[in-house]
């Protein structure tokens, strides 16, 4: 499918969008981040296509589904790759008795999985959806767990099936060629966790590949909906993207909830957050490099050890800062939980030492990885992901930037202290596995630049203005029926959170938009027609983390 260039990419006022949608609009809502337009369930494709082609809303960031007392509702959160601050929510109510809504899969390919998830967890059925099956829960699950009438105590039966070759019969009928069905995972070292990939091979080549997820679906949304805003939710984001990217995830929740409850964050705390988040990004990218090398070279090689060595250094710094190696729980709504460790000079010195050694370490990585012929042969021009395909699948983060899409939430929808610092968004035009690797390596350098500037600022910060937390009430109860969708740039891409408050101290609906979930969807596009090891390399280059894919 192709995405045409928008007729005019300029900023759209809500009135212009209303004009564009015309009589499709049957109601208006106001979300804190964007205007919301209510449309009929059978006009989804029409509305989304108009917005994409004529108003430049070419990024379907997330689909949120929810069951209300009197209706079901799907919300399509649209934004633009060119201008992240342009946002619009398309709200599609569906009948309570017979919740059917049109699928957006025709306009945005990413809607495929998002709608399957909505079907799985909430129970909305999507018309014209190519493959409406459960995605996170086992196929024999009874009931829709985030729906209102779900009984959590009912027994469930989960089969362990030997999977049959889905293509064999068809192929036999036509010609002599034989395909082979290959299960990769769910327990396999190359899947970076518990991912199951159903692969159909023709000789050495992949003809069909389907990621089967849900082996780590641990109900993160339910957990957050059962927890209070003030303290109880914050530990959970650490466990979405658990590759040391905890602070980045915490920031996603902090940003959304702070905007929802109108909480100020002191500038000093923002700098600490920015520094911590970038350290996390470095640690996450180091692991991505190490495991990518592991996928390519196939064993615990030197590179893996090097990346773990550098991660240990970052984790030591983060441990000094937060008290934890992996699950930091360091952010609080309105700031951070405590100030820099004392004596501060020691902390700064330690961090500077790490940054000073980093160029040498990166040189080593380049010597052993990017300038290594074996790796080049394996990665250059394999797993090609053209930019328009990446956009249609809602790819973000290093995956999008490796396809030349200049998109980074840190710059495009600034938060924290990023806009006051000097750094660049890294992009590469190769669209292949090698480009994605390069993007990550160069992003480590950019993160180092940011951390360095933050340290300089923190060192010279006036002693009496070191305010780490604003005055936040003990209990937070945002107004009833306030809705917000906000995102930050996580280690893997755009990590968004949708919260609808219901007037209590717990969220009414808490939806996580995981960058890996969308990125993983591009895997079949990248791998079909490639050799098996290249498919594995592509999977490694996506740098997924299953905790975030499955949530």
């Amino acid at each position, binding site marked *: 499918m192709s995405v045409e260039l928008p007729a005019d990419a300029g900023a759209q006022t809500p009135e212009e969008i209303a004009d564009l949608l015309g009589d499709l609009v049957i109601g208006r809502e106001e979300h804190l981040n964007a205007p919301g337009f209510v449309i009929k369930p059978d006009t989804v494709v029409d509305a989304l296509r108009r917005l994409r082609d004529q108003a430049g809303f070419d990024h379907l960031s997330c689909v949120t589904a929810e069951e209300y007392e009197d209706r079901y509702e799907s919300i399509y959160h649209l934004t633009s790759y060119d201008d992240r601050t342009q946002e619009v929510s398309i709200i599609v109510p569906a009948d309570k008795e017979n919740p059917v809504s049109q699928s957006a899969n025709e306009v945005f390919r990413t809607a495929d999985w998002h709608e399957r998830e909505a079907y799985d967890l909430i129970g909305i059925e999507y018309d014209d959806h190519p493959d409406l099956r459960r995605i996170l829960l086992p196929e024999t699950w009874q009931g829709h767990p985030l729906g209102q009438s779900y009984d959590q105590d009912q027994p469930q*039966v989960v089969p362990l099936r030997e999977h049959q070759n889905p293509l064999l019969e068809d192929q036999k009928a036509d010609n002599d060629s034989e395909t082979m069905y290959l299960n990769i995972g769910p327990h396999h070292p190359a899947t970076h966790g518990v991912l199951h990939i159903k692969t159909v091979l023709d000789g050495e080549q992949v003809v069909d590949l389907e990621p089967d997820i849900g082996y780590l679906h641990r109900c993160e949304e339910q957990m957050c909906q059962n927890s209070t805003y003030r303290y109880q939710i914050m530990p959970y984001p650490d466990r979405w993207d658990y590759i040391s990217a905890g602070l980045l995830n915490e920031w996603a929740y902090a940003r959304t909830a702070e905007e929802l409850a109108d909480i100020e964050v002191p500038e000093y705390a923002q700098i600490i957050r920015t520094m911590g988040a970038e350290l996390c990004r470095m640690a996450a990218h180091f692991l991505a490099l190490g495991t990518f090398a592991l996928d390519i070279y196939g064993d615990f090689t030197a590179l893996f050890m090097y990346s773990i060595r550098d991660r240990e250094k970052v984790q030591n710094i983060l441990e000094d800062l937060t008290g934890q190696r992996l699950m930091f729980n360091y952010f609080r709504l309105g700031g951070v939980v405590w100030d820099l460790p004392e004596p501060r000079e020691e902390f700064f010195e330690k961090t500077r030492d790490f940054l000073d050694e980093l160029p040498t370490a990166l040189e080593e990585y380049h010597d052993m990885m990017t300038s290594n012929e074996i790796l080049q042969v394996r990665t250059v021009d394999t797993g090609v992901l053209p930019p328009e395909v990446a956009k249609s699948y809602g790819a973000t983060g290093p995956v999008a930037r490796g396809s030349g899409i200049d998109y980074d939430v840190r710059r495009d929808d600034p938060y924290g202290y990023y806009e006051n610092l000097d750094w660049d968004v890294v992009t590469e035009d190769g669209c292949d596995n090698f480009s994605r690797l390069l993007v990550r390596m160069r992003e480590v350098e950019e993160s180092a630049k940011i951390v360095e500037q933050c340290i300089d600022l923190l060192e010279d910060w006036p002693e009496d203005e070191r305010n780490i937390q604003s005055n936040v009430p003990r209990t937070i109860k945002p107004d009833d029926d306030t809705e917000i969708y906000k995102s930050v740039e996580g280690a893997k891409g755009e990590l968004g959170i949708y919260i609808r408050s219901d007037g209590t101290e717990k969220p009414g609906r808490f939806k996580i938009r995981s960058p890996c979930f969308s990125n993983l969807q591009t895997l079949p596009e990248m791998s079909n027609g490639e050799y098996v090891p290249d498919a594995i390399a592509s999977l490694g280059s996506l740098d997924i983390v299953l905790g975030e894919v499955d949530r």
Partner: protein
Amino acid sequence: MDAQLAGGHAKNGATELMSSDNHQPFVTDSSKVGTDTREARLSGQDNRFNSRLREAFGSSPFILTKFDKFMNWVRGSSMFMLQFGIACCSIEMMHTYAVKHDLDRFGAGVPRASPRQADVIIIPGTIVSKFAPRMKRVYDQMPEPKFVIGMGSCTISGGPFQEGYNVVKGAEEVIPVDIHVPGCPPRPEALIYGVAKLQERIANGESSPVTVKPYELEEFGDLERDEIIDQLAEEIDVDDLVMRYNWGDSP
């Protein structure tokens, strides 16, 4: 372990000959002894060829021990771990295998990718309904004797996700667990302590009692028929292996 093993031997054999005022280069608890033959054997050897074991053996080419005891000691001293990652804890597990913590120092640092080559499985993370049958299958594929280390709170009780609709409340609902390492996630040091404790248990010949687990893999046709089984009868063949979760009975 080697000290204990050899200590038993020394007591059987040369105890009477020991004298504590004998100064020799490699003194260990179990062999504060020196005999002429031992002295002769040790002298002239480069130090690095000596070990506590060798020193304890002295000149005797024989070990007197029970075969079982010997096997247990061997098992504990050379454990092949399964390369098995589930969730957050697997990141700390990788750190434990890699530089700095280097689990290989304790004879347990060779992760094997195939369950058929492994004898210890570390369960590093949350087990959910879809994964538990697969984990059980992986466990079943490991050769006997096999040992299980549960890493992190999720494998103890479901941890922070205990109330989730999809989360199995601990690894012990599915497979037997020898050692629980608490933490969310446990630090690498904690995991190493857990591994050392397991080695100790194996060397002493201890193992967890085999109990019937609440969730087993069974053929669908063997399940007791009730409402949910009737509903699913069309979707699942009678000889499909299934795992039935009775969430209401979970802790």
